[in-house]
């Protein structure tokens, strides 16, 4: 049998997870958890492109999720756009903003870049908190219904709200993963990984390092924006927390914990970190403490991230 490419294997595993998991759901509530994992997985896939491929860090990507989310809340009311088009508008704004912000700050490296992106995230979050007239401030704002489930019902497909968002986000994640995997093996993806390896060598083979970093930044901002829109649309409500500092940190943590260089690994990281707090509720007031401890232990013992470390161990045993 011919060996599966890493890309096909990843997509197959993801598709199988999306389809098979519901068989084991003890209650309808788990569709919600599943959908949340997929949305986080999508945002984190964008981080894989920026951090895993191109080696650049952002501690402000929740800002783009905020823009995607609030676009879905505001554009239907103020511009009369249907929510789906509002999400597209969010993508355009996020992409344009990433381009404008990325140009000056992607010249910075390492923790300088981290602090600059952090500043961007805080800025977006502050605007969302303070422009009460428009955004509703810290209390959040209602998001109109996407309307797709109603359409499906008219066509004779009647599924619950939870099921609808579970599969809708699952499909979005599959498409996002497919695109990220396409990129990885493409000329552009190779150039991104090359500049990650050595910027000097990348330059001498003709790679326009500044331009490629910017492309990675814009693409990953689009992922975050779509994730923010999906979150807002399924909750039918959004607060500035979606753009908050903690959310940015969460994205990076999920990617690094799962394995930032690998799409499947990062999505696994999103799954683990979304599920852990649910599981750890048995520890009651020690929940946060245990969560922190688990994260530290994972980084100490699975340094390259959950999936890459486990794969390496398995392979080591084969040989």
């Amino acid at each position: 049998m011919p060996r599966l490419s890493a890309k096909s294997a990843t997509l197959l595993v993801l598709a199988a997870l999306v389809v098979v998991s519901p068989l084991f759901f003890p209650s309808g509530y788990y569709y919600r958890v599943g959908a949340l994992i997929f949305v986080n997985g999508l945002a984190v896939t964008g981080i894989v492109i920026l951090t895993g491929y191109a080696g650049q860090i952002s501690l402000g990507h929740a800002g783009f999720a905020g823009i995607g989310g609030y676009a879905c809340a505001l554009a239907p009311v103020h511009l009369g756009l249907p929510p789906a088009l509002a999400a597209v508008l969010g993508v355009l704004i996020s992409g344009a903003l990433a381009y404008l912000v990325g140009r000056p700050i992607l010249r910075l490296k390492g923790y300088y870049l981290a602090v600059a992106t952090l500043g961007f995230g805080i800025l977006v979050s502050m605007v969302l908190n303070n422009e009460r007239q428009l955004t509703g401030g810290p209390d959040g704002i209602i998001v109109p219904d996407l309307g797709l489930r109603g359409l499906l019902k008219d066509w004779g497909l009647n599924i619950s709200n939870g099921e609808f968002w579970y599969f809708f986000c699952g499909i979005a994640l599959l498409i996002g993963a497919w695109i990220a995997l396409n990129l990885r093996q493409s000329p552009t993806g190779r150039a991104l990984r090359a500049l990650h390896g050595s910027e000097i060598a990348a330059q001498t083979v003709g790679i326009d390092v500044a331009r490629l970093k910017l492309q990675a930044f814009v693409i990953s901002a689009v992922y975050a924006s779509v994730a923010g829109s999906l979150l807002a649309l399924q909750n039918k409500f959004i607060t500035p927390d979606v753009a908050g500092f903690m959310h940015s940190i969460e994205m990076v943590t999920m990617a690094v914990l799962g394995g930032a260089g690998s799409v499947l690994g990062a999505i696994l990281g999103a799954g683990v970190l979304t599920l852990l707090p649910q599981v750890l509720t048995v520890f009651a007031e020690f929940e946060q403490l245990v969560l922190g401890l688990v994260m530290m232990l994972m980084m100490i013992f699975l340094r390259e991230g959950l999936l890459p470390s486990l794969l390496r161990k398995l392979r080591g045993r084969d040989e």
Partner: protein
Amino acid sequence: MTLLSIEGLGIAFGGIKAVHDVSLKVDPGEIVSIIGPNGAGKTTLFNMISGIYQPDSGCVLLEGEDVTGMAPFRLASRGMSRTFQNLQIFQNMTVLENAIAGFHLQERGAVLADLLHLPSSRRRARAAEAGARALLARVGLERAADREAGSLSYGSLKRLEIARALALRPKVLLLDEPAAGCNAVETEEIDQLIAEVAASGVAILLVEHDMKLVMRISSHVVVLDQGEKIAEGAPAEVSRDPAVIAAYLGSEEAAHADG
């Protein structure tokens, strides 16, 4: 018109002149070697020519055009390519991918096509891969193609860098100690390869410590000492020059001349 011409190039770090008023020329098919003791400024000179350092004075002319201080990636698209004394390998990639990266200017295209895996993107990638495999065969690394670059020996990495540099189909190629750390057989192979590349019409600027190699393949030798050019000429002339013997051969004779 000279292909690459350097006029009065100089740079100082913290007041110390690392390179001072160095001029030289290279024409297609020529191998011009730069020799001199450690710290003479050879690598610094390469870094100025290839746009990594901005020179304080002087200029670099490529095909008659002033390209002084131009960004390295722009120089690459104008036909300049180089290797590094301290390896600059993409350690996070396979050997094959390192070689393919050298084809960046030929394989790049619309990002959207890459994101969606469109036929145009696949075609570009396939062509680059075929080219890269041919180059790996040329430097004897075809069997290591799928290994992690980081797992290769030093000598193999040197050859991988040469393959990557050749992938650009350069008009001028800068090689910074390509044979350092290579055994006699590998050195012989690199020697042959350099001669072949020059014979195909590429202008080569070579920094190399192996004097036998330098004397055998150079068309012209430039000697640097403490940042200044102290002699130049045909290999035989230079090796007889008393100033050169004093500054360079004298101190390293034992290491290189009789090896």
